[in-house]
């Protein structure tokens, strides 16, 4: 077990002149109320006259809606409205989720409530609103939909076959997006390589299972013609924009508020039909309407992710150099591309990232993204990274094994060296600065690799089969406008911070990126305290309110620290300058003679305290009459930051997993997990550790347990927490985390993202560890989740 370590002063130069908090494991004081049961999640909010909506959702994968009978339901006690797709379509426009820069991508128009057809089990068809949720659920039983089942496309493997029915005939086929990449001389390299290894990798669909389900309250006020939406969401300004466009509002008419969010992980960064329907209902009824998904609804209508089948191969020479990778990725995304980020991004990332840590020069990739009648898939924590990493690292291990090289040595030899940056990866990704070599050296020491190998060999003689698996990874963070903006999606890559010195000397910071548990607000407080020069309990952070915070993109692509944090730093440094200017005016002295130290303005030369911040506040706000004519105090400043130097700033790292496999039962016991991560400047080591650990456990979930299972007719077989397995404390190992700090030069702060790399690396590391344990049996498993059954099959025991 490792304790959070303080990195302050160890590695990097400070960014502020009296740095006390940045770099330290400062507890998140704002989180105390969550431990006291005083959070405010959506379901804790009750508004006067609030109705509750429940949905009649398609019970089958694909159906034609013939007639909807609502009379009985409408007459039930407390019922306020029963609304179908046609009625809803009168006020909410349909949408098509494509991106301009994904050439050739297509999808069909999608409605808030299904019109004519429903295309997956769980698609909302009819909305019932009543005064209480119980009444709405009672009335739901009496909604009568006449429907007939249509042929459904379930398997992605056959989605493109000519005899397979078309989900959207107007699109001409079931292909959403396809992409091919061919760099170098792949065929020739594979033909002449000393070693070629190949495997087919399978990834089960899984979903985010945020503990707080998706939920919102829409409150349309007819007097003001203004819509307020309380939302459990990651991107409030994005939702504000979407409500404007789908319902014809302007930004000033729509107010989105995100209070406490009970887990998000990418699940709550999308716009769901339910969101628009709830808003539409509030507008129709002119009263607040609350929607809270129940767990079954979450399983069938939260986005799923990661259903892929990838054929991959690797070529290497005798000396141990990786020469080439080739992949063919097939992925199924459900019947519609998800709004507004699109469901093609995940596969696109796989193409971008396979082979990414290594210096090979030949790469071919092919991607088909196909439609099917299952729940839509989209971006979930790590987006494509866990898949790319498991494929890459699985192939790397196979090659190392054929070469009889130690897998760690093989990686050390092949990673892009730490002195090679900036450079471009083979797929065209631009890499600013990474530290693979240092990370590999760190993990080797941390896990005492030679001793572990010895232990493994000794135990093997006794019939105990343990395995060690590595996964080297890159994670794209701090995205530039090249991600969505260029494709026409109105998702801000810039973010802003407004910071104000209050009259008492307290610093209020308003930030566009919000808090979903990562500790974002905590690190903003640390940055603000250091940059303005106050103690951390003199800082108040406000996020999650489109009426008050600067416009920004919110939480996605691990941008909270790197983009939001930089905006906070810039704004706070500007405020400190303004404080000094004001002090100069008050004291009638040149600013160059003054400095700031811990809530005071000092005489720079003597260190004598001249003015406390409370005095700056008092004069700046209440006694401006004493200031020179024309002088403006400006004790509130706003700064924005966009990362424009690179399409992304990559975080990198390496993980290792140690497991024991029981060859009789196929049971896997996770013994230990190690992670070394380089997310640039670490603002709070404890919070990064916990991001890494939480993400690793989510990655392990996908690797070993989690899968949305469907039957042949497209019905979800395990839509409950009792049937869909998620990692619990007992099965999880201790996870040791270490940091390497290579700051990005694209910002003053130097922070890269840390939220997703854990999820990216864990499945590859666990898969490789299991396969390492199976070496004596000459068996491999590349089908995630790697269940006991699959292991027993690989061992030919069943």
């Amino acid at each position: 077990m490792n304790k959070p370590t303080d990195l302050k002063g160890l590695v990097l130069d400070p960014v502020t002149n009296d740095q006390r908090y940045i770099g330290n494991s400062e507890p998140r004081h704002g989180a105390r109320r969550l431990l006291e049961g005083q959070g405010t999640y959506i379901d804790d909010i009750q508004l006067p006259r609030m109705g509750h909506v429940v949905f009649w959702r398609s019970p089958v994968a694909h159906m034609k809606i013939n007639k909807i009978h609502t009379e009985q339901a409408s007459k039930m006690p407390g019922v306020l409205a029963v609304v179908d797709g046609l009625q809803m379509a009168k006020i909410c426009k349909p949408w098509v989720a494509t991106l301009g820069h994904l050439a050739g991508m297509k999808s069909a128009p999608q409605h808030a409530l299904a019109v004519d057809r429903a295309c997956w089990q769980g698609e909302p068809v009819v909305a019932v609103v009543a005064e209480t949720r119980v009444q709405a659920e009672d009335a739901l039983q009496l909604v009568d939909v006449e429907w007939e089942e249509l042929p459904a496309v379930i398997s992605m493997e056959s989605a493109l076959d000519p005899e397979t029915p078309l989900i959207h005939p107007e699109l001409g086929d079931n292909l959403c997006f396809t992409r091919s990449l061919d760099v170098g001389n792949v065929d020739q390299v594979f033909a002449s390589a000393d070693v070629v290894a190949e495997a087919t990798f399978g990834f089960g669909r899984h979903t985010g299972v945020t503990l707080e389900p998706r939920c919102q309250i829409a409150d349309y006020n007819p007097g003001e013609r203004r819509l307020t939406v309380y939302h459990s969401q990651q991107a409030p300004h994005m939702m504000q924009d979407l409500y404007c466009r789908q319902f014809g509002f302007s930004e000033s008419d729509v107010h989105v508020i995100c209070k406490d969010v009970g887990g998000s992980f990418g699940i709550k960064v999308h716009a769901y039909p339910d969101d628009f329907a709830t808003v539409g209902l509030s507008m129709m009824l002119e009263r607040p309407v609350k929607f809270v998904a129940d767990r079954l609804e979450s399983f069938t209508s939260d986005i799923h992710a990661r259903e892929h089948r990838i054929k991959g191969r690797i070529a290497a020479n005798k000396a141990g150099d990786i020469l080439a990778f080739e992949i063919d990725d097939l992925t199924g995304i459900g019947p519609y591309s998800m709004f507004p980020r699109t469901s093609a991004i995940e596969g696109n990332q796989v193409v971008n990232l396979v082979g990414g840590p290594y210096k090979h020069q030949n790469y071919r990739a092919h991607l088909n993204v196909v439609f099917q009648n299952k729940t839509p898939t989209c971006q979930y924590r790590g987006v494509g990274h866990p898949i790319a990493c498991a494929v890459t690292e699985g192939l790397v291990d196979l090659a190392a094994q054929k070469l009889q090289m130690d897998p760690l040595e093989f990686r050390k030899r092949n990673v892009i060296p730490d002195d090679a940056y900036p450079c471009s990866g083979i797929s065209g990704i631009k890499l600013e600065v990474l530290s693979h070599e240092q990370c590999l050296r760190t993990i080797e020491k941390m896990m005492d690799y030679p001793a572990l190998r010895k232990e493994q060999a000794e135990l093997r003689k006794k019939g105990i089969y343990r395995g060690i698996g590595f996964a080297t990874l890159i994670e794209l963070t701090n995205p530039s406008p090249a991600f969505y903006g260029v494709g026409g999606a109105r998702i801000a890559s810039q973010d802003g911070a407004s910071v104000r010195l209050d009259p008492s000397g307290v610093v209020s910071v308003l930030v566009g990126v919000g808090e979903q548990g990562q500790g974002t607000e905590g690190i903003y407080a640390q940055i603000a305290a250091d940059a303005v020069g106050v103690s951390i309990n003199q800082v108040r952070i406000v996020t999650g309110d489109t009426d008050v915070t600067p416009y920004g993109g919110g939480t996605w692509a691990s941008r909270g620290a790197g983009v939001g944090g930089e905006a906070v730093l810039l704004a706070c440094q500007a405020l400190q300058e303004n404080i000094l200017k004001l002090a100069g005016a008050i004291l009638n002295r040149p600013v160059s003679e003054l400095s700031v130290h811990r809530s005071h303005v000092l005489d720079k030369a003597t260190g004598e305290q001249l003015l406390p911040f409370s005095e700056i506040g008092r004069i700046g706000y209440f006694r401006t009459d004493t200031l020179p004519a024309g002088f403006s105090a400006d004790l509130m400043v706003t700064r924005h930051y966009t990362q424009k130097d690179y399409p992304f700033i990559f975080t990198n790292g390496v993980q290792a997993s140690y497991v024991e496999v029981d060859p009789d039962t196929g049971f896997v016991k996770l013994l230990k997990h190690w992670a070394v991560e380089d997310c640039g400047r670490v603002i709070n080591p404890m919070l990064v550790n916990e991001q890494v650990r939480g993400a690793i456990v989510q990655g392990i979930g996908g690797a070993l347990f989690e899968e949305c299972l469907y039957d042949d007719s497209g019905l979800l077989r395990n839509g409950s927490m009792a049937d869909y397995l998620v990692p619990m404390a007992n099965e999880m190992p201790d996870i040791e985390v270490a940091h390497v700090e290579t700051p990005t030069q694209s910002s003053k702060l130097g922070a890269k993202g840390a939220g997703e790399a854990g999820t990216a690396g864990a499945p590859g590391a666990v898969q490789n560890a299991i396969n390492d344990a199976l070496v004596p049996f000459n068996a491999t498993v590349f089908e995630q989740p790697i269940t006991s059954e699959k292991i027993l099959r690989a061992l030919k025991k069943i």
Partner: protein
Amino acid sequence: MNLKKKISLTVNGTLVNAEIEPRRHLVDFLREDLHLKGPHLGCEQGACGACTVKVDGQIIRGCLYLAVQADGCVVETVEGLTKSGVLADLQESFMRHNAMQCGFCSSGMLLAAAELVEKQPKANREEVREWISGNYCRCTGYHSIVDAIVDVLDARAKGQKIKPVTAHA
């Protein structure tokens, strides 16, 4: 026909009289009728532990327990147990280890942990993991929660209190 039943119970030290439908779950009653925000609903089927509250000193799942069953009982939630200081050590330790992220699981996790501290004061790391395995946390990866609980067990064994977390000056 009025199917409502009269119940009377003590919630966080206050006597509460109510008339409710027999099908109403305890957690719904606490949240919607008494406006308590501590117990949460994660699954409504007994799988996640977010709705954990105490009835007559025992932790139970508020989503599987009918409010009418609590007639005549003493019910405690994280709010009440915070006020009485019962959870103070655990709360400080959770703060120190950042053993919560979104906090949605925290009230249930704390109540489960408190029962462990009481019933199994000598638990080791593995036993702590096993004990809290009825409580789902999607955010933390559990490691920090285990650290936080183990620290409280250690402190108790030595007869110490966990020092309150303060901002460093």
